């Protein structure tokens, strides 16, 4: 059993909150850890995940049955790959409606896949309510609320309560704006950041920033591992009983 087998859904009902940046970082992180990664881009237009990581990303749409099968059947495939979904705002509601109708999270768990919801928190009501609704609709999913420090230091954890005692907030640290400029222009790759010809200070700033976010991802990995083990234990218990 591959214990780190997970499906990460990067989501928010708000635009421009850092979903694609987080999905890019996560994809790069898994690649650098030597894992097989399949990422799915549910965004239309420019500056999307598919433009940054064309080799690893499939452009997806869930408007019709064909698109839904291409995405969800792939997410559920037991092919050993880590899956990452960059869920565009326009597809947010439809995706989770389908996921809850299909019993997505419960089926994933039956297949020893840990479904992880990386939810970018913002303090507005829409976002808070959407998060609470998701907690109810996908009770089997592992919750990983994300705080993007570009929005300041306050984490709004109080607004998102009850987050649950086992839930830890993933922090996306702030990157200096002069470096962000490079990072946000395709085809910039975190894995090959030397190619961007940054000056020394910017390069150091970027590496420092990457180290911080990768540390967050490693902690997330450990939680996924723990969840997977608990899952395996409880399913063994079920079989015995």
């Amino acid at each position: 059993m591959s214990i780190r087998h997970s499906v990460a859904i990067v989501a928010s009902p708000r635009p421009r909150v850092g979903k694609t940046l987080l999905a890019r970082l996560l994809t790069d992180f898994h690649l650098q850890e030597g894992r097989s990664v399949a990422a799915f881009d549910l965004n239309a237009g420019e500056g999307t995940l598919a433009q940054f990581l064309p080799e690893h990303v499939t452009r997806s749409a869930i408007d019709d049955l064909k698109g839904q099968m291409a995405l969800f059947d792939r997410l559920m495939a037991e092919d050993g790959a880590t899956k990452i979904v960059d869920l565009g705002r326009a597809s947010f509601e439809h995706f989770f409606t389908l996921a809850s109708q299909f019993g997505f999270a419960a089926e994933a768990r039956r297949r020893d896949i840990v479904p992880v919801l990386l939810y970018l928190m913002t303090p507005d009501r829409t976002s808070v309510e959407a998060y609470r609704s998701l907690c109810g609709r996908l009770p089997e999913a592992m919750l990983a609320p994300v705080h993007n420090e570009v929005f300041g230091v306050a984490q709004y954890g109080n607004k998102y309560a009850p987050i649950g005692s086992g839930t830890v907030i993933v922090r996306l640290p702030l990157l200096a704006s002069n470096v962000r400029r490079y990072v946000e222009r395709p085809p910039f790759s975190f894995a090959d950041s030397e190619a961007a010809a940054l000056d020394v200070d910017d390069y150091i700033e970027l590496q420092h920033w990457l180290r911080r976010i990768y540390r967050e991802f490693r902690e997330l990995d450990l939680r996924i591992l723990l969840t997977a083990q608990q899952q395996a234990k409880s399913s063994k218990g079920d079989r015995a009983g």
Partner: protein
Amino acid sequence: MAKPAVILIGADKGGVGKTTVARTLLDYFGTRQIPTRAFDTESPRGTLKRFHPDVTEVVDVASVSDQMKIFDTVGSAEAKVTVIDVRAGLLSSTLQALNNIGFIELGKTGQITLAMFHILGPSIASLEEIAETARFVGDANYFLVKNYINETLFFEWDPATYKSYFKRIKGAEEISIPKLNEMTCEQVEVASVPYVSFIANKNAKGEPSNYSFVLRGYVRHWLGRVWEEFDRVKLVDLVSPKSEKNIRQVAG
């Protein structure tokens, strides 16, 4: 012994989804552990038999020997519920035959539970059947099933027409079967398994299969909605009114 129940599923027109409804019913009772048997009158080859071979027998309702096979065993069979998928065009004649052998009378006097699932098509002709069949079964346990196989509105836009047909049978309950998309229907057809097996990703032998997760998801959601309708009309109470009491006795 509990009172046996017979559920007739019929329509005079073909292609309105009788067998679909029969399949959802067999899954519904199966999941609730209510022993059920089914008769498929699409003699000689039956669609229902293909999906539920273990509990289904193909019969010819026009033949006396097959009538005996169905109705003489209603009280003695292990299965408490008998589901009969009446072939297109045979609904009126089947009801006539049942009336002749006194079976309808058994229902009226309460010795058996007789229920009728009348599947409606989107045409006026299909509504006119209601009048035809109503005179046999009276107002007892009559279910008008609107099967939304397409975007039909069942004349809800015309209250006069609607009322004249749908209110004709006093106490008739309406059941709505939502639409399941074509591709999913086809895949379940190809798989030739009960809906619950398809959802559980199992083939006809009960071995793990490899159906699309999305299509299984659609069936799961759709079947859930169909069953909500069956729950709403209290179908379980109708076919086994005593089972709940039995459970209470055991618990007490």
